[in-house]
């Protein structure tokens, strides 16, 4: 997994609340193989009309070309556990989403794929959105070492679970970590099945 330390990039003020994963990637695209890239599916129905023509959605404006940061309102990534929502963001180029709150599974999926879910206060999100709308060239600098967002006046702090922060900073993969505990896992399994026989399904 790609480590994340600092990102200075074009930022798009999405400004929407409750952006659920069904909007991030509509279900009908999820049987597609990843190889072709999921970027064009990102927020598909907000971005394209029935004929497939662009609706001129904020993300597609020249002003936000090459955006790698999104700023949204509360409850971003709520809903379905589909990791394809992260694939769509990632393949589009997004590496960081800033919002006052995130769906739990979304935030976990994000970190596992190297994408930073940076949590800010409601006021900070409003400040960032307003600042980006005013800027001639909307950019922000997100620093995971100092936990600060720069570029919109005075620096704005953000929060992230410390474990997730370490994972992102180091690009750690869970599996490498888990395999170091193989002996403990085997011992736990034996103990659990002996003490709680119902933990093994009866045969039908």
């Amino acid at each position, binding site marked *: 997994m790609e480590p994340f330390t600092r990102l200075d990039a074009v930022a798009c003020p999405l400004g929407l609340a409750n952006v659920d994963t069904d909007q991030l990637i509509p279900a009908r695209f999820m049987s597609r193989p990843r190889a072709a890239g999921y970027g064009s599916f990102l927020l598909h129905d907000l971005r394209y009309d029935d004929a497939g023509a662009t609706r001129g959605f904020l993300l597609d404006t020249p002003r936000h070309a090459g955006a790698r940061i999104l700023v949204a309102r509360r409850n971003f990534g709520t*809903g379905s*556990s589909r990791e394809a929502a992260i694939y769509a963001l990632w393949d589009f180029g997004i590496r960081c989403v800033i919002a006052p709150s995130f769906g*739990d599974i979304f935030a976990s999926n994000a970190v596992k794929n190297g994408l930073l879910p940076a949590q800010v206060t409601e006021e900070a999100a409003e400040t960032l959105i307003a600042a980006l709308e005013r800027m001639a060239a909307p950019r922000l600098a997100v620093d995971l070492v100092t936990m600060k967002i720069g570029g919109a006046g005075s620096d704005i702090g953000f929060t992230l679970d*410390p*474990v997730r922060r370490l994972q992102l900073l180091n690009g750690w993969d869970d599996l490498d970590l888990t395999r170091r505990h193989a002996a403990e896992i085997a011992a736990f*399994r034996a103990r659990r099945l002996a003490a709680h026989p119902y933990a093994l*399904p009866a*045969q*039908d």
Partner: protein
Amino acid sequence: MTAKPRTLFDKLWDAHVIVTREDGEALLWIDRHFVHEGSHHAFRALDGRGLPLAEPGLTFGIADHYVPTRGRPHIPDPEIAGMVSRLADNAGRHGFRLFGLDDPAQGIVHVVGPEQGLTLPGLTIVCGDSHTSTHGAFGAFAFGIGASEVAHVLMTQTLWQRKPKRMRAWFDGRPGPHVAAKDLALHLIRTIGADGARGHALEYAGAAIAALSMESRLTLCNMGIEAGARLALVAPDETTFAYLRGRPFAPEGAALEAAIAEWRGLASDPDAAFDREVTIDAAAIAPTVTWGVSPEDALPIDAAVPDPAAAGSAARADYLRAALTYMGLAPGQRLEDIRIDRAFIGSCTNARIEDLRAAAAVLRGRRARVPGLVSPGSSLVRRQAEAEGLDRVFIEAGFVWGESGCSMCVGMNGDTVGAGERCASTTNRNFRGRQGKDARTHIMSPAMVAAAAVTGRLTDVRALGEA
């Protein structure tokens, strides 16, 4: 020395921790892993590493998300057919039990698990589907995971997790007639918000919960995720144990009695502390429906949709305006004046036998004014309903009696609501485009969907009277 009082969730957590890292993340043992057609990314990761499936005996496959509900076993769309057969290939190759398209016990994963006795109190249960919270109705520690985590469980039967906080929703009193678990859930979400339980293990408790059937508890825990909870729980009790007797994969005889004795100890200790508590008066809850694009956009059926002009902030006004535009509603419009185009009874939220009975009780002797579809939660529920003659009630009312699957809940198997169409639905999500591109969803209980189908508009089932 007396042990520190613990909540139900604390007990489940403690029983599954293999190791805890210095940073506080714990490696948890997973007792049951359900996979479905959408789990293909994870199987590819497993194969990519050249690893075997760690625990085929604890892994169960279910074809539900992509299966058609009409014309089986033929699947006309090659992409969908490919998804279903890829799951069967993975089951064959890795040697786990599959409830496939042709299995008499096939159905929606969150209906089949409990029905088969795979879901038991005291277990950790995961699935790559957010509504895995449903299984918590048995006092199981059950939660939805993403594809990377599914891959990790396939490879190791474990997961790294940070312990969520504990929240209790205490429901006092008795709900009135025709007020169902769905109404309790929607009322809670509208009270605390769609992220109100975020980061928490949400335990439902109180007299109103103790009186609920397993079916209703499953509905409540299913909707826990729509309140933002990581997982939802109800303490196991006599209702739970009675449900488990005779289920194919549940223990029997002395093994069951020993398990029950252990499960009785799972309930939260009387003085255990929760990080957050809310109290709800169940007697004050009316049949509730959603009007907007988030489950928190819910109101009692006798209310009117909000007016952006009266919103407290500009951001809220923007939100309301966008939601009303998407839903094709006028500010201040009365809910009961909203006409619908179709009705859907199905999904892991509300397609168990009790749900079909509640809807059929309203439809008996009546005709629906709009097209409707019923997709029972499992093929066994479907057969049970047929044995009770419920299929006749639905068909005579004008509904299509479909087969079991996720159907119109998710818009990926051929069952969709058309663009701009308005659907009264027993599902759990009214998100933009959830039931199909530009589809408009109003979520409500099965009896309320039946009532709406009969009048062609959102309707208070209590005012419908006898047929």
